[in-house]
């Protein structure tokens, strides 16, 4: 733990933030920003250096991940339900993975965190104050890196990878456009704006991820290395 740990809000009942002595590093960014690749690189790098890591991400909880997946396939989720369903998924992983790992001094690498969830909900019209209260359960990470990629570049990367655009990552539920390509660009632009709005309160480091994988990795190693040296 680099600086004294604190929760953003009320935290979790009966959990003392000072006991969370591990390191929490968050990598944020859209699909196609290179997030997962970078996290895999980081795990390799950290474990090689003898540090224990735990990885968490969105929609990976034992409690609700399957149900959430099913609900999203049926496109029956309205915005408040979507927000609270993801919050439940986050809270389950927080209590069962993140907090125990931090208590044991692990490095927790989060493949997205509350910011993506908040940005998605904000784009869907949920109130920022409401979201800040909801996610007051989250501990403040030691570092947050936002891999920023231009929507035009994102669309190219997503299509190159899977030849299709994801319904939710294109914000199709928002009715921006019937055209998926248009909708994707509009949605990702709105997400970028929401992230910039959130940056005012949450101070994350914006990494220019329009560059090659290697140069992003190099920058992350440098920054995280410096962070761990302080420990």
């Amino acid at each position, binding site marked *: 733990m680099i600086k004294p740990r604190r929760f953003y809000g009320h935290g979790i*009942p009966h959990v003392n933030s000072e006991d969370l002595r591990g390191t929490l590093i968050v990598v944020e960014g859209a699909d196609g920003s290179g997030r997962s690749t970078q996290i895999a690189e980081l795990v390799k790098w950290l474990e090689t250096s003898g540090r224990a890591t735990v990885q968490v991400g969105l929609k990976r909880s034992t409690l609700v991940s399957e149900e959430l997946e099913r609900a999203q396939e049926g496109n029956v989720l309205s915005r*408040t339900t979507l927000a609270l369903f993801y919050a439940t998924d986050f809270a389950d992983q927080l209590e069962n993975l993140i907090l125990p790992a931090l208590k044991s001094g692990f490095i927790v690498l989060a493949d997205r965190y509350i910011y993506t969830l908040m940005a998605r909900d904000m784009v869907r019209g949920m109130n920022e104050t409401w979201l800040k209260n909801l996610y007051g359960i989250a501990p403040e990470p030691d570092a947050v890196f936002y891999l920023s990629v231009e929507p035009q570049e994102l669309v190219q990367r997503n299509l190159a990878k899977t030849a299709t655009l994801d319904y939710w990552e294109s914000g199709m539920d928002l009715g921006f456009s019937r055209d998926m390509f248009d909708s994707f660009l509009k949605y990702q632009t709105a997400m970028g704006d929401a992230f910039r709005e959130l940056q005012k309160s949450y101070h994350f480091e914006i990494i220019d991820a329009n560059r090659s994988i290697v140069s992003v990795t190099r920058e992350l190693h440098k920054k995280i290395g410096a962070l761990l040296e302080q420990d």
Partner: protein
Amino acid sequence: MKTFAESQFPGRLIAVEGLDGSGKSTQIYLLKRWLEAEGIKVYFSEWNSSELVKSATSKGKKRELLTPTTFSLIHATDFADRYERHLVPLLRAGYIVLCDRYIFTAFARDVTRGCPPDWVRGNYSFACIPDLTMFFKADLDVSLNRILEGRPKLKFFEAGMDLRLSNDPYESFKIFQGRILDQYLAMTKEFNFVIIDANQPVEKQQVIVRKLVSDRIELKKFKRRSPLPLPPALHVVREEIEKEEDKAA
């Protein structure tokens, strides 16, 4: 927080709250039967019944995976799904919606489990409050006896076993229910609960309930036969026609 009437919804929402065994479900069921017989557009919704969330909740309960925080959030998700997909559209369409438990159940239970009150309230702040909330207040012993009489097998979370109040489920249930009752009583004023004495016979309570509902809500406005809600200007015309019809009849 505003009621549905204050938020200009054409429909009205009536909620019942109380401990397990207070008899509230019987009362709201009888209320529903009456309103249906009167030809009123009525819809009934039960706490913790969203199809979307159900399997997650029951898995969480069965495997005892839930913490106070996830218990609270999964019930909020369930409520949000019912609220956005059923309650709000029906209330927009001028229905009378009856809820067996509403957000106050979460306020009482989650806070008893240790969640911060303003966190829980904040999470539910997207919802309007009922136009009428009836709280069925029975003596704690009466409620406990109704539930425990047959020595049923109490479920883990139902008995509040997650709070480690006692190793005996019956003892735990009693302490847990007592604490929930305290939480309910503390919010009676804040949320304008109408307290119904639930120690009385069922029929007597139902008379009180029906009178309360017909005093508070102009029921004839919610009849099925009436045409679909019209734009405001025509609405006035319609009322005039109805008056004439009433005279003719």
